[in-house]
Every structure is written in structure tokens, then in C-alpha cells.
């Protein structure tokens, strides 16, 4: 047996086994961390009604401020209320089964759609839309991502702990870094404090806490 594998001493064999088990375990946990954990920490959600921004904007030709507008005191209207939808959707306007669902299930029954809100900030944060949109002329897409390109029903992922979300788009939309997705999808993360602070710094704006925190 001189030419074959060198015979290991007892201590060396034990070390080899321990090291082997360690590395196999490391690889298993790394893989789990890359694939399973993101799925565990994020809840996948879809909107109750398949609303398409691209259809309303490009095909129907409605401008953004028809539904998303400022009140006179400078506060932001946010997600449109049912009354704004009903202005047009009093009855069926098209052939789409989703619109049928919307009109029959919500409009005619006088129910509100519980839209999934993926841009909600914690209660210690106050954000002024008019300061950013009217004064600083920041485009909506800078923070909200390519909402106007949502041709497919918008799905989003909510972190089960922090409640911050990622919006999932089709491949046609640009992405702002987030792993663990299929290639035909891209995502846009919601606005976290780091992103706000980075933008303020790069524009030379104040990063005083009370500007955003309340």
C-alpha cells in the first residue's frame, strides 16, 4: 500500500471528517440563505384588482394628476379614493374581466378596494410631496419607480418584520437592485431612510432629523 493513498492517522481522519461536515453544512446553509430565507422574510402579495397604470396612461390618455393630485393646503391625495374611480367607472367601459370584477364587486356594491399600499412609511416619518414635487422638481419615478410601466398586475413583496415592500414589475421596467428574482421580473424597492438621506446629501440639502421625522 505504499503507492496508494497515504494512510491517515486517527487524529487526521477525525479532522478531515469534521472539516468535511463543516463545509457541507456551510454550503447547505449558504444556499438556504440565498434561496429560502428571502422567501421566508418577504410575503408575496398581489393587488385585489388588476389595475394597469400603462393602460390608463398610455392607451386611455389620462394624465397622472387626474387621480394623483395635491389638495390646496399642499397635502397629497395619495391613493385615489373610490369616488375618483367612479367618475369614469360608473358602468362597464370595456371588455376586461378585471374591470367587470371592479364594477360588479366594488362600484355597484359600494365597497372600497383595499389596495395594497407599498409606499407606506412608519408613523414617526412625515413626508411632504409638495416640497419634493413642486419645489425640488423630483420626478415621481425617482422614488416610486416605473409605476407608469406596470402593464401586468402589480405584485409586491412585503418584509414581514419591517413592512417595507418591493414592487415587482415585468422585465420591461428598470430595476433598483434586489436579488432572488427570476430574470423576466424586475423590482423597485420602496423608500428607506438611507435612500432619502443619500439623495438629500447628493443634492446638498439638509439632513436635519426633524425635516422628515415627527
Amino acid at each position, binding site marked *: 500500500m505504499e503507492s496508494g493513498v497515504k494512510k491517515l492517522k486517527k487524529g487526521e481522519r477525525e479532522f478531515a471528517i469534521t472539516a468535511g461536515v463543516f463545509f457541507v453544512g456551510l454550503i447547505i446553509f449558504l444556499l438556504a440563505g440565498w434561496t429560502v430565507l428571502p422567501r421566508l422574510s418577504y410575503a408575496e402579495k398581489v393587488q385585489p384588482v388588476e389595475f394597469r397604470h400603462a393602460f390608463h396612461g398610455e392607451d386611455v390618455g389620462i394624465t397622472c394628476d387626474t387621480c394623483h393630485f*395635491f389638495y*390646496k*393646503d*399642499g*397635502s397629497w391625495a395619495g391613493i385615489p379614493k373610490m369616488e375618483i374611480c367612479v367618475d369614469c367607472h360608473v358602468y362597464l367601459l370595456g371588455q376586461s374581466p378585471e374591470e367587470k370584477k371592479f364594477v360588479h364587486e366594488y362600484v355597484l356594491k359600494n365597497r372600497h378596494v383595499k389596495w395594497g399600499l407599498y409606499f407606506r412609511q*412608519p*408613523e*414617526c416619518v*412625515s413626508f*411632504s410631496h*409638495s*416640497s419634493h414635487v*413642486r*419645489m425640488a422638481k423630483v420626478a415621481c419615478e425617482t422614488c416610486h419607480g416605473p409605476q407608469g410601466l406596470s402593464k401586468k398586475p402589480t405584485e409586491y413583496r412585503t418584509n414581514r418584520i419591517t413592512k417595507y415592500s418591493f414592487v415587482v414589475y415585468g422585465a420591461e421596467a428598470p430595476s433598483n437592485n434586489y436579488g432572488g428574482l427570476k430574470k423576466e421580473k424586475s423590482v423597485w424597492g420602496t423608500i428607506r431612510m438611507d435612500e432619502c438621506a443619500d439623495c438629500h446629501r447628493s443634492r446638498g440639502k*439638509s439632513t*436635519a*432629523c*426633524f*425635516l422628515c*421625522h*415627527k
Partner: protein
Amino acid sequence: MKTREETSRLIRYGMTIDVDKCTGCSNCAVACHMENNVPCRTDETDKSRNIAWMRIYKVTNGAEYPLTRIVYFPRPCMQCDHHTPCVSVCPASATNYDELTGVVDQINTRCIGCRYCMAACPYMVRCFNWWDPVWVGDTGKQLNPDVAPRMRGVVEKCTFCSHRYSKAKNKAHNDGRGYLKEDEYVPACVEACPMGAMRFGDLNNPEHEVSRLIKSPRAFRLLEKLHTEPKVYYLSSSRWIRDMADNYV
């Protein structure tokens, strides 16, 4: 270091309180409580543990009747402009001094509750949340949605109603204005004062009433000898009141 000219161009929000007009009615304190979701307990007798952003101090001249005189000092945060004691000691950067407005703010979610700032503050302005706030019965319904309630274990203090500043700025920006008019941003206490004893505005803006008032010989500040340059000025015509302010209160 900034030159004097540079500093004078910046906005420095400040307040004047005319103690000759003040009747000690505590309207300002109540308005402050309501506006800022300041918690209170059923038993508020322990004043070392209760929370008040605006406290009313009653001071007498110590003389026998009929020479007794009483004065009330409403005391919000003094918003010290120079070497702000609380800001310089905070290890968590939970409180900071805003260069643009001069407001000393408090970020409660960042506070670690070490209470170093409470020890540093010469005016005893800061309060510690010893318990989680409890809103008994319907009192929870009057909470102001513009101010986040604090949790136990953090320090809180008067912020010159900085949420009102944000709101006023919001409206101004919507109108395409980059500045605020004098009456657009006023803290709740100033608004509530029935005697008109309190004024609020930009101390560096000659068009604002406060900038004129602080130059009057009636104007003084509490503990001026510490040189923290408070931005809350008191006004009084009585000599004994002005003399007293620099010693204690």
C-alpha cells in the same frame, strides 16, 4: 466659524414671552399637551416623573404683603443657539441642532434613553418616558396624527412644534414659495395664549415682530450667564424680575 453677517441671514426661529402680560392661566401648557400627544397619568403629583414640554413656574419677590409680587414664567425648550448642551452630550445623535432654522429637535426613535441630555440641560426642559403612554378611554381619539407618540425609555422635549413648520412649508412649497410668512408657522402655545403675551417668528428677519421685541430693553433670557444663547426671550418692565432670571428659575 461663521461670520456674523452669514449667521444673521439664516432663519433663527425664536419666541418672546411677555411675563408682565402672562396671567399663569396655563393655556399654553394645555395646548402643548394636546398638540404634541404628551402623555399624562391619572396621578400626576410626582413632578419629577411627569412629562410636560411647557411648564409654568411661579416666582415671587419674597416680600411681605402688601409688597408681594408674583410672576409666572412659561418655560418651553429654550432652543439654545450656542453649544447646545443637550446636543453636544447625546451619544446617539438623537437630538440635533438644525442649522437652517435653529430648531433643536428630538428623534425619539433614535433615543437610547441614557438621559445624559436631561442632566446637561440647564433649564430642566427634557422629560423621560418612564412608562408607555396610556390613552384612557376616549382620550386616544384626540391624538394629533402629525406627531408620533413616544414609547417608554426615551426622552422627549419641546420642538417648537416642528411638525407645524413642516406643514407650513408644505403649503408654501405648494404655492411655489421657498419662504414662510410670519404668521404661517406658529407653535401651539403661542397660538393658544389668550393674553397675546407670546410672539413667535424669525429673530433674524427685521420684518418679524420678535426681532424688534428682543432688542427692547425689557428683553432678557433665563440663565444668560451660561452663554448658551437661548432663543426664547422674556419681556418685563420690572427690574426684580429681570435680575432674578439670571440666577435661578
